[in-house]
């Protein structure tokens, strides 16, 4: 993902997270998002990460991290323990997609997902020319990509419907700016905030702790 989109991703997630919230970041990498949220919003963050190297980076950064494979589920986390559960740029690499999305709204009041939009129009152009798309957002060759579950905005929204997830907000970005019209073609990056269908008390940002 381009640096520009990393910055947008962080800033948008930051806007959706309340001051001092408890945030769980799934696939937290080197902990930079949680570090950013702590610095800007005073959040209490916990990350989940599988890679030894990235776990060490998190500890170095002062981010609390739990080393675990996301696909093994979030059994270590109790119900509604966090204000927000984030899956930033990781959805497309998760094996148990449906399970992880459901778990997100079990352990958190709301979930935030960001992913590269496979429907971005140059991808279609690439496929028309007979090639899998390789772009700044998805810079991998087809045989060497961690991205096993790529989707478009519509695909994701359909899945949310199937899983009973209510989408609260959607923000989409092109490489240059936020896009509102024809986002399905024009956006390279999509962010969604969602909650459980049955969760009544979470229409807007929650502030303060859950507990």
């Amino acid at each position, binding site marked *: 993902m381009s640096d520009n989109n990393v910055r947008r991703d962080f800033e948008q997630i930051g806007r959706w997270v309340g001051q001092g919230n408890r945030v769980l970041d799934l696939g937290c990498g080197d902990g930079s998002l949680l570090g950013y949220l702590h610095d800007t919003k005073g959040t209490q963050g916990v990350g989940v990460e599988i890679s*030894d190297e990235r776990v060490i980076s998190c500890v*170095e950064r*002062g981010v*609390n991290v*739990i080393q675990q494979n996301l696909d093994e589920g979030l059994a*270590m*986390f*109790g119900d509604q*323990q966090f204000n927000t559960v984030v899956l930033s740029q990781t959805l497309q690499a998760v094996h148990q997609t449906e399970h992880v999305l459901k778990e997100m709204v079990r352990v958190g009041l709301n979930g935030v997902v960001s992913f590269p939009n496979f429907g971005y129009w140059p991808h279609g152009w690439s496929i028309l020319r007979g090639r899998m798309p390789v772009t700044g957002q998805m810079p991998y060759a087809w045989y060497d990509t961690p991205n096993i579950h790529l989707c478009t905005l519509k695909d994701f929204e359909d899945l949310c419907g199937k899983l009973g997830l209510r989408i609260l907000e959607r923000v989409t970005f092109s490489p240059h700016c936020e896009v509102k019209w024809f986002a399905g073609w024009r956006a390279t990056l999509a962010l969604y905030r969602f909650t459980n269908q049955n969760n009544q008390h979470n229409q807007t940002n929650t502030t303060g702790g859950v507990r």
Partner: protein
Amino acid sequence: MINAAALKSTDTEGRKLTEPSNDVQAEPGSVGVVKTQYFEFDQPLALASGQSLDAYTLAVQTYGTLNATKTNAVLMCHALNASHHVAGVSADDPNEIGWWDNMVGPGKPVDTNKFFVIGVNNLGSCFGSTGPASIRPETGEPWGAAFPVITVEDWVMAQARLADRLGIERFAAVMGGSLGGMQALSWSITCPERLANCVVIASTPRLSAQNIGFNEVARRAIITDPEFHGGNYYAQGVVPKRGLSVARMIGHITYLSDDDMAEKFGRAQRAPALDGAWRYGFDVEFEVESYLRYQGEKFSKYFDANTYLLITRALDYFDPSRSTDGDLTQALASVQASFLLVSFATDWRFPPARSREIVKALLNNATPVTYAEIDAPHGHDAFLLDDSRYHAVVRQYFKRIAKAVLDE
């Protein structure tokens, strides 16, 4: 700044400290040649069993320098067969290296240039602190079977008194592996305000039936040895070395992973007959047998059988959630420390699932916790071995502690 050597004044009278000899050399990164201090306590210590110890000695080593505000102290809790000799080289024997020497020292993950590290031999042990082999003042004879059963919580209380003696109100961290991790966990529950961080390596919130089963086999081996004499073997001038040796052999198997044993020994024969034929008997046939017998015999020469009974029982009894109807979250509700937990994928004695129970309980309480699950091949023993990922996690965590505690 108070130098460790300055604490000499509190040493027991009549016990001469071993001065470093010139021919013992320490490796770079080692704390160097170390010596033991003995602290006497004469306030009775009430024990969980209802008994009490009127007076006792604790054998202690310290490394690094306690800062003026006494905020940089780290307590290292030892496991079953270890001691207060955590790091450095023994002044008496250059081959005697501290049990966690790869972890503790100048520039090591627990950096003695920054931290004042304390190793303490637990009550009931046999390396200088009061235990069953010590002389009981009332009788002038060794305690033997009369020595009270000791729990992890009792150890913590004794360690807390040592901290009082050293003027340490709050540890930067209390750390331990295996049974040592239980002590660290117990510290966080029984003295929540006295530690900023709790570092629990390859440990468990309670023993499983299987764990207790192995301990019981070890104890039966000792107790049924004809030379055990009901625990009062000292007077007979013998030790139940066969029983102790078998106890060690079974313990040793649980410290190693199946793969590790396969790789180390496989089915290699020790001294096969001509053409590799079996010897068709019950002497050592396989390498693994020879290794275990050697480990058992070596252990039986330096470890006290009564201590083995006591410490395995302390392991069995440890269960902080016993007072909260098995609810570990509630048991850990009063905890104030931040936690680092590490487990090892091939540890089947205290497998990762046991550490995850602690992590889950801490998360339920919103206690800050970091958990690393290291894919190391060496079973339970991995916590004592040099693994770069494991050590990097501990190193970075202690850098964080140094930053927070020492305001660097």
